[in-house]
């Protein structure tokens, strides 16, 4: 096992962290697929409103590569297809039947798996609709199944605040994880499995499975950071990655021949009714997870996918395919008199300019910007927290100036979009968004 230390980063110590306990939820009335939230995909619907679906029926495919399919997370009737501006498909809502039917896929026993060819496994994953769980660095697109990646990175613990604890989602599933890694080894000659030092190694995990033990603050556990820390040559850049929990889904599909629909998600944040792990369905409605009505006071923000990388979800929306957390935070839109001159013993901050930096206790965080946007003053705080050393303050300027070559030389594509540069910036510049925009523009240009 290789130890990797990533010094830069920041662990935000805030209240509302989910307890390592699980609470099951009853089956929801309906589930949904959110094609809009799957990056880069151009969906082509295969169903209509009113269509009858089984768990595992094809709902839509990617126009760019139709072998990549997205399957129904529930058995029942398509209740509604919600279109957004310019007819982007936002939601496909499926009303669940009492008795849900399942499509069955080929299953593999351990010995069959050992003998299976790469092509047959790829075929099985594609047909089973879970190819989309793989992502290709650095852009995060779904990879081309015909290409063998330089490596596949499994990050068991992303360290982003409020994501499921590996100890919880791996409980009793260590053999499934082992099987999952066996599958990955068929797909690529090099499989890296990383776990954070602070996480307990799940019991029953086969020896030698974990290849990298990472330490350091968020985003140390991120696949992109691991790649940055380990790569020796440019050929390794296009590695694939998959999260620990997603790998379990993959292994379940291959072993049982059934499309897996169970998800463990965290419910966290200071305004969540309870803070714990919830066993629920893929695509479950958010009110179902939050355990409260949508009629609650409006000054709460629902964040799906983490406080640094997630998106604001409407309170009646659903979990997207990749989502593993729902965080409920106060909006924080109150003005604060003489805020700049207060000692601030309860302010979450990376700097040392508040009394709170002397305390160890967790603080309540809100979604306020806590200031107004100003020009960059070159304080370099963003560089202090950048785990992949891209010098955000300089890359920001080259990206804004449209200097693509310069940005790339700085390591724009190594950026893992952890959002910390945006978080710490005293000038309140959304650095991460600028870098992400520059990266996406470059990706688009490459594809055309």
């Amino acid at each position, binding site marked *: 096992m290789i130890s990797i230390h990533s010094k830069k980063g920041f662990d935000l110590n805030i209240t509302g962290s989910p307890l390592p306990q699980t609470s099951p939820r009853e089956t929801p009335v309906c589930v949904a697929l959110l094609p809009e939230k799957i990056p880069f995909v151009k969906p082509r619907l295969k169903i209509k409103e009113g269509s009858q679906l089984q768990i595992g029926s094809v709902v839509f495919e990617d126009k760019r590569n139709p072998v990549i399919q997205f399957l129904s997370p529930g058995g029942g009737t398509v209740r509604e297809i919600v279109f957004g501006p310019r007819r982007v498909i936002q939601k496909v809502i499926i009303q669940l039947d009492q008795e849900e039917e399942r499509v069955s896929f080929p299953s593999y026993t351990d010995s069959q798996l050992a003998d299976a060819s790469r092509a047959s496994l790829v075929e099985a994953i594609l047909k089973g609709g879970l190819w989309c769980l793989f992502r290709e660095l650095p852009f995060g697109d779904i990879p081309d199944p015909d290409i063998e990646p330089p490596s596949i990175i499994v990050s068991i613990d992303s360290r982003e605040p409020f994501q499921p604890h590996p100890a919880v989602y791996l409980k009793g599933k260590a053999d499934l994880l082992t099987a999952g890694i066996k599958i990955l080894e068929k797909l690529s000659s090099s499989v890296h499995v990383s776990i954070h030092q602070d996480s307990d190694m799940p019991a029953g995990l086969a020896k030698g499975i974990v290849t990298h033990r990472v330490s350091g603050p968020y985003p140390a556990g991120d696949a992109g950071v691991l790649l940055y820390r380990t790569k020796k040559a440019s050929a390794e850049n296009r590695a694939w990655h998959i999260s620990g929990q997603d790998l379990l889904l993959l292994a379940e599909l291959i072993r049982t021949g059934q499309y897996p629909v169970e998800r463990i998600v965290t419910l966290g944040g200071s305004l969540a009714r309870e803070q714990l792990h919830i066993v629920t369905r893929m695509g479950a409605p958010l009110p179902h997870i939050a355990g409260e009505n949508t009629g609650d006071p409006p000054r709460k923000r629902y964040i799906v996918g983490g*406080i640094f990388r*997630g998106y604001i979800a409407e309170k009646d929306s659903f979990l997207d395919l990749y989502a593993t957390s729902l965080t409920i935070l106060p909006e924080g839109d109150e003005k604060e008199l003489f805020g700049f001159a207060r000692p601030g013993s309860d302010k979450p901050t990376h700097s040392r300019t508040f009394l709170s930096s002397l305390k160890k206790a967790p603080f309540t965080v*809100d*979604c*306020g*910007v806590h200031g*107004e946007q100003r020009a*960059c003053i*070159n304080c370099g705080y963003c560089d202090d927290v950048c785990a992949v050393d891209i010098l955000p303050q300089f890359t920001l300027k080259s990206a804004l100036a449209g200097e693509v070559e310069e940005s790339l*030389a700085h390591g724009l594509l190594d950026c893992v979009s952890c959002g910390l540069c945006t978080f710490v910036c005293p000038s309140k510049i959304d650095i991460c968004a600028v870098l992400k925009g520059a990266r996406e523009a470059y990706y688009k240009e490459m594809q055309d």
Partner: protein
Amino acid sequence: MAKWHPLFEATESFFFIPGLTTQADAHVRDSLDVKRFMSFVILALMPPFLFGMYNAGYQSNLASGASLTLLPVVLKGLLIILPLVVISYGVGFFWEILFAVVRKHPISEGFLVTGLLFPLTLPPTMPLWQAAVGISFGVVIGKEVFGGTGRNILNPALTGRAFLFFAYPAKMSGDAVWAVVDGVKAGAVDAFSGATPLSIAGLANAQEKIEAVLKAADYPFIKLLLGLYAGSIGATSALLCFAGAALLVVVGIASYRIIIGGIAGVLLTGYLLNFLAGDSSSAWLSLNPFYHLVMGGFAFGIAYMATDPVTAPGMDKVKWVYGFLIGMLTVLIRVFNPAYPEGIMLAILFMNLFSPLLDHIEIRLKIKKRVINV
């Protein structure tokens, strides 16, 4: 009315942290903003500012033969310093607001610091109109023509001071400018020389020791460190300037690399010059380098001016180089250029120009080590 929005916004945001919320990821933001960042510099400026006020009153009363007890001295100091500060902030803000309104950008908090730094670098006798001209030059040419705080290449307060230094040398140098003398009382004035330690040191003959000359002129080392002598308003007390620097380093606003680099630059250059000293060479060469730290404006400059993040390099390693070269240049200007008794101002402005180059070099070296990812 809409064009006055920057003014409204500045006034409102002086009192309130506005209730803006994030619109996308990252959803949470640090509680620190530029206003608090700059406020800490103001806070760190308070010791030299308050002491400077007291000292200006003390020197004035000393020169005028008036009472040296606390209250009259403080009142006198207030009378001398407050108009300068008011003029600096008033005229500076006028330009800030004008540019903000015309160019439709928000008023940056950076000026809060510039507006206080600038008067502290002036002699107490500075005519108010000249101070107004100086801050105007500093704000307009030093900053606003480049697009405002964050985009300037030179420290605006020092740019203003440099302008005054070259435009009105009679009011910025010599022995007569460092204390306000009023109500001429013969005799008392004679007892007061008004010469600064740097100018006394500059007059020392080759055979003399500067330390001894200073001591003879009643400027022992400890007095230079504590600062109760005539000089630029905020810059006489090296001790308080270093205390302010320590505060800024502790809260992570100022770079310790620049400050320590600067001190190292002064000491190392000073010691190297000691080796060059011969019997007939200038008395400066054999000066104990620690005197360079406490004389003149070095402490003030390295603590508050050189650490301005906008005009200093952004990369960590070259901050050492930047600080070191500021210290070195300060000593070289003092020792080898008799035309300028003080070197820190020009040293910082000169190194400001080199910041982008220093950054460029370190970035190139860093990029070379990366595995290319395109």
